[in-house]
C-alpha cells in the first residue's frame, strides 16, 4: 500500500476498537460543557474536562466559546447563535470522519471543504405559529473534495463518515434529554 499522510493515526483507532470490544465499561465517555450567562442572551461556554477510559480526563487547555444572537434579533452578536454551534459540530465531525476513513482506505486527501446550511423557520422559537418546530427543518452539507480517488470512492468516503458520525447520529436520531435545576 502506498503511504498516505492525512495525519490520522488510524492504527491507534483500530487498536482501541479491538481493546474496547472486550472492555465496554472503558468505552463509556461523558463529555461536558459549562456555560455561564453574561448579559442579554450572551453566554460563555467553557470546555476542558471529560470522563473516559475509566477516569477523569482533560483537554490540553480550556477552550472558551461565546454564544449570542445577531443584531437582527436585537441582540449584541458577541458570538454565534447556539443553533449555529450544531452546524459547527456537524461539519467538523463529518470532516474528521472523512479524513479517518480516507486514511484507513489509503486515499490521499488534498483538500476537503464543505458548506453546512440549516433551514430554520424562526416562527417556531418566537411562538408565532405552534405548528412550526423550534429546530432545523432540514440541514444540507455540501462537500468539495480533492483527493487521489474516483468520484465513487469519494462518495463512499462521505457516506461512511456519516455512518460513523456522532453528531450526524445525534442530529438525525432522537436523544433523551434531561434538564433539571440543581
Amino acid at each position, binding site marked *: 500500500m502506498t503511504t498516505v499522510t492525512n495525519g490520522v493515526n488510524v492504527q491507534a483507532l483500530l487498536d482501541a476498537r479491538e481493546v474496547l470490544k472486550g472492555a465496554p465499561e472503558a468505552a463509556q465517555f461523558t463529555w461536558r460543557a459549562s456555560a455561564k450567562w453574561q448579559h442579554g442572551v450572551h453566554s460563555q461556554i467553557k470546555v476542558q474536562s471529560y470522563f473516559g477510559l475509566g477516569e477523569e480526563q482533560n483537554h490540553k487547555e480550556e477552550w472558551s466559546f461565546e454564544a449570542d444572537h445577531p443584531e437582527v434579533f436585537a441582540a449584541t452578536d458577541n458570538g454565534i447563535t447556539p443553533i449555529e454551534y450544531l452546524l459547527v459540530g456537524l461539519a467538523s465531525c463529518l470532516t474528521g470522519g472523512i479524513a479517518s476513513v480516507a486514511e484507513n482506505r489509503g486515499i490521499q486527501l488534498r483538500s476537503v471543504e464543505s458548506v453546512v446550511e440549516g433551514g430554520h423557520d424562526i416562527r417556531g422559537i418566537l411562538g408565532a405559529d405552534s405548528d412550526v418546530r423550534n429546530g432545523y427543518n432540514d440541514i444540507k452539507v455540501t462537500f468539495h473534495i480533492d483527493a487521489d480517488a474516483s468520484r465513487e470512492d469519494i*462518495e463512499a468516503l462521505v*457516506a*461512511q463518515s456519516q*455512518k460513523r458520525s456522532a453528531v450526524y*447520529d445525534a*442530529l*438525525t*436520531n*432522537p436523544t433523551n434529554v434531561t434538564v433539571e435545576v440543581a
Partner: protein
Amino acid sequence: MAASRFLGDRSIDHVVLERGEVANSWRTERWDSLRLLTPNWQSRLPGLRYEGPDPDGYMTVGEVTAFIERFAAVSRAPVRTGTTVTSVRRADDGYHVTTMHGELACRAVIIASGACNQPSVPALAGAVPASVEQLTPFDYRDPAKLPDGGVLVVGASATGVQLAAELQRSGRPVTLAVGEHVRLPRIYRGRDVLWWMDTSGVWDQRYDEVDDLTRARRLPSPQLVGTPERTTLDLNALASIGVELIGRWAAVRDGRALFSGGLRNVFSLADLKMRRLLDTFDEWARTNGRDAEVGPPERFPPTGVPTSTRLHLDLGSGEIRTIVWATGFRPDYGWLDVPVLDAKGQLRHEGGVVDSPGLYALGLPVLRRRRSTFMCGIEDDARAVIDHLARYLAVRG
C-alpha cells in the same frame, strides 16, 4: 440431514433430532406467498438437485417442503421427528442430550437448528399502544388476516420489502421504516443476480477471507423476491406502488414513533455497495471471457429520495392499525447448556467447529463461505464439518 448424509457415507452411527416434522419451519413459520430467493437450478443438496421444468423459477413454500422431504427419503436420514431437544450438556465422554422422549449419550453433536428460530423485535415494541396490532413474520400468513387500514412495516430486508409490497397491493397503505439495507436487482445483464453471486465466486469467499466477519454474519438479507415475473423489488419499486419510505425507527415518545432523519445516507450506502458489486461482476465477466454470454453492463438509477420524509407518526391517531416487525431473526440456544455463546448470544465457532470439543454447527450465516445459508451452500459446509468431526472421533478413539 446433509450432515447425516456424510456421516452415513463414513458409517458413523448417528440420529437426526427434529422437534416437529421434516421441514418443520417451512411448514409452520412461513407466510403463504413466500418463495425461495434462489432460483430452482440453485436448489441442490448432497445427491439431490432440482430436475423440474422451470430452472429459473423460485420454489413456493410447499415445493421447498416437498424438496426437503424428498431429500430425507433419498438420503435415508435416521430422523426422529417430534423430538424436541430440551438440553445439551457436556458429559465425561461427550455430550448428554435430553429430549422430550428420553436421554441420549453421544460423542459429538452438530447444531443444525439455524439462525432464525425467533423473530428479533426491538424493545421499543413495548411502548406501542395496545390499539395497534403487532405481528412478526412468524405470525403473518396473508394480508386478509390484518385489519383494514395503515400498516407500518419495520425493516427493509427481503422479508420487509416482500411484506410491504404484498400489503400495499392489498389496499392497505404501507409505511416502510428503512435502516441499513442491501439493494440488488433481480436480473443483471440478463442473468439472475444470484447466478452472478454463484458463478463469479462472490459466494465462494471463505469466512477467513472476509474483511469484517462479524459484519458479514450480521448482514441483512438482500432486497429480493422470487416471483414468476422475476421482478426487482428495491425501494424504488416499492415507492412506485405507493409505499411511503421513512427512516429507521428510533424511539417512541409520548405515543409518537420517532424516525431517523438519516434516510438519505442509508440509500447512498446501499446504492454505492450495489454499484461496487456490479463492478465486481463486470470485471469478472471481462477477465474470464464471459461478456458474450450475458447482456451489456447496466447501471440502475439511485434510490429516489422522497421530497419530504416524515420524522414521526402518532401511533394513537388510527393511521397505523398494524405494525409488522421485519427486524430480523435470532437463534434460540435456550437448550444449550454448554458455555459457547458470545456476549451477543451467538455461537462461538471457527467455520462450524464450535468452541467445545465434539460440538459443531451448520446452517449459520457465512459459517464457512458466503453461500453458507443458501441451500446450495450446505453440501460443502457439511462435508468439511463432518471431515473435522470424523478426525476428532478417530483421534479420541
